[in-house]
């Protein structure tokens, strides 16, 4: 068995390797890794041109995972994602053959998920939840580890289909991708005006089996009862703060918060979960699971502001 310290060192190496391609965005890189460790999915929200696709591609490359990309459009059909039966004439006779869609990968990037129709959303979300797809009478299991990373553009909302609260709840994290700092942007501009990202050589730090083993290790991570209680109380408080929150987070959020805190502890090389881990994971776990009240919106409070206020209490 790999020791916790060794895991920490290897995750540091992952960060170093990603940093060869993506400059800055350390929090986003860490949260994507945690989502992979928790066997969860993440919704990435950020403006165009912030290296979201590049980041996901790089991470999947370093983790030695099969990567595929789906572009969300209004005419995207569920069969375009899951795959369909085609007529195969290669053996001299016509027979139906299943042609797997892009969902059959380890890391699936669904770009601009809110541009796809609700029917397509359902197909993606079913695959996320069940880790299998059903076409006709046949059910196909998706390969583990399976990780969906969907991006959503916070601007240009016209002609989009906003994901419902129930659908959004299935994402472990909502990760906000911000603009890089000035120094970072200068470095990005300098680097990519001289070389191509795909040409940068990256080391493979983990493989699929390592990741599956790490996912089981996350579940084994011990947590003190009072820290578990603290995490659950934080989630419950989102349901009780009616002045700021119209709808609070579900018990699924409690599970997600504890799992994420465990994964963060493992990545940090600790054998126990700290209260700080819970606090650090509160924003990505809860921000898409609460609906601010009219009063909160009137006060220009965002989801993050509300969660930070709850953390201070």
């Amino acid at each position, binding site marked *: *068995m790999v*020791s*916790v310290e060794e895991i920490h060192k290897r995750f540091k190496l992952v960060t170093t390797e990603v940093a060869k391609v993506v400059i800055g965005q350390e929090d986003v890189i860490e949260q994507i890794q945690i989502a992979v460790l928790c066997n969860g999915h993440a919704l990435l929200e950020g403006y165009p041109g912030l290296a979201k696709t590049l980041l996901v591609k790089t991470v999947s490359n370093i983790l030695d995972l099969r990567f595929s990309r789906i572009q969300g459009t209004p005419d995207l059909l569920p069969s375009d994602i899951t795959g369909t039966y085609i007529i195969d004439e290669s053996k001299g006779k016509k027979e139906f053959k299943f042609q797997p869609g892009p969902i059959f990968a380890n890391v699936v990037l669904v770009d601009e998920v809110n541009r796809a129709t609700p029917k397509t959303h359902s197909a993606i979300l079913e695959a996320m939840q069940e880790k299998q797809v059903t076409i006709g009478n046949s059910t196909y299991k998706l390969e583990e580890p399976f990780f969906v990373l969907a991006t959503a553009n916070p601007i240009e909302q016209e002609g989009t289909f906003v994901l419902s609260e129930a659908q959004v709840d299935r994402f472990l994290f909502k990760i906000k991708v911000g603009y890089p700092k000035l120094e970072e942007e200068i470095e990005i501009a300098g680097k990519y005006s001289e070389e191509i990202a795909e040409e940068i050589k990256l080391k493979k730090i983990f493989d699929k089996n390592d990741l599956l083993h790490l996912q089981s*290790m996350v579940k*084994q*991570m*011990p*947590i*003190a*009862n*009072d*820290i578990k209680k603290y995490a659950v109380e934080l989630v419950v408080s989102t349901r009780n703060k009616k002045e700021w929150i119209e709808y609070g987070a579900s018990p699924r959020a409690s599970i997600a918060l504890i799992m994420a805190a465990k994964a963060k502890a493992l990545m940090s090389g600790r*054998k*126990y*979960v*700290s*209260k700080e881990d819970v606090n650090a994971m509160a924003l990505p776990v809860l921000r898409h699971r609460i609906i601010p009240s009219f009063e909160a919106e009137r006060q220009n409070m965002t989801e993050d502001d509300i969660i930070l206020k709850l953390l201070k209490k």
Partner: protein
Amino acid sequence: MQIVEKALGEIKNFFLLLDIGNSLLNSLILFLVLLLISNFSGIGFLYPLIISLVYFAYALIKKHSQNKYFEVEQKTPSLNEQLRTVADNVNKTNPIIDELKDDVVKKMRDVKTSNFIDNKSLILRVLILGGLSFLILFLAYINVDFTGEIQHAIIEPIKEIGTRRANTQEAISINISVTEGNLSEILGNNSLAKFKKDNLQLTINPLLSETDPSNIGQVQSESFTPPDFPKEIYTSYDVSYNEKVAKQNQQVVKDYFEKINR
């Protein structure tokens, strides 16, 4: 039993003893303070004892219900959050927990029991305890009793208010008065005549008496049968009396009896 279980058990036992000691010391201080007050007010020692015992039980339960591992972690930062995690997962086994248990056992060597005893507070409480004990003994020795003063200053005005409000009961006072005269032989002790018509106040010292002034019960009615008195009383001159009276006084005695016989 695992080493970590033994270590956790030791911590629990140590804190139990510490809690008992602290609660006992605080309860003793409370008991002595209440006893001092009860001596002044004449409440009796049973109430302070009951109150102190109740406080002892409450303080012990409250202190013992607190998370002791958290206290250890506060005094030993290297164990922060790890001791609680191990204590809550002591019955589970997997590679991570086992490693954590080993780490915690190693770090528990840094835990010193002396860190949890507050010497300043302990000395202060022992001093208070000694001071209170001395005060109680000293007051008992010089027989200081403020019962009357407290009665006069606090209880009587309260009673007066009560009487005024009720306005149904009449105040009853018992006066024992002694009249002056040549009755020293009848009354016995001549010094009692000095009281004249003043009230005689009788005070019972609770420390020197088995009587408990605080124990006031209902008045029991006693049946009283008067003795069989003669219907008529008369005096007569007895010649034999003259034999014992000097001759020059016999007329005086005779006059006296005739006078009272009228």
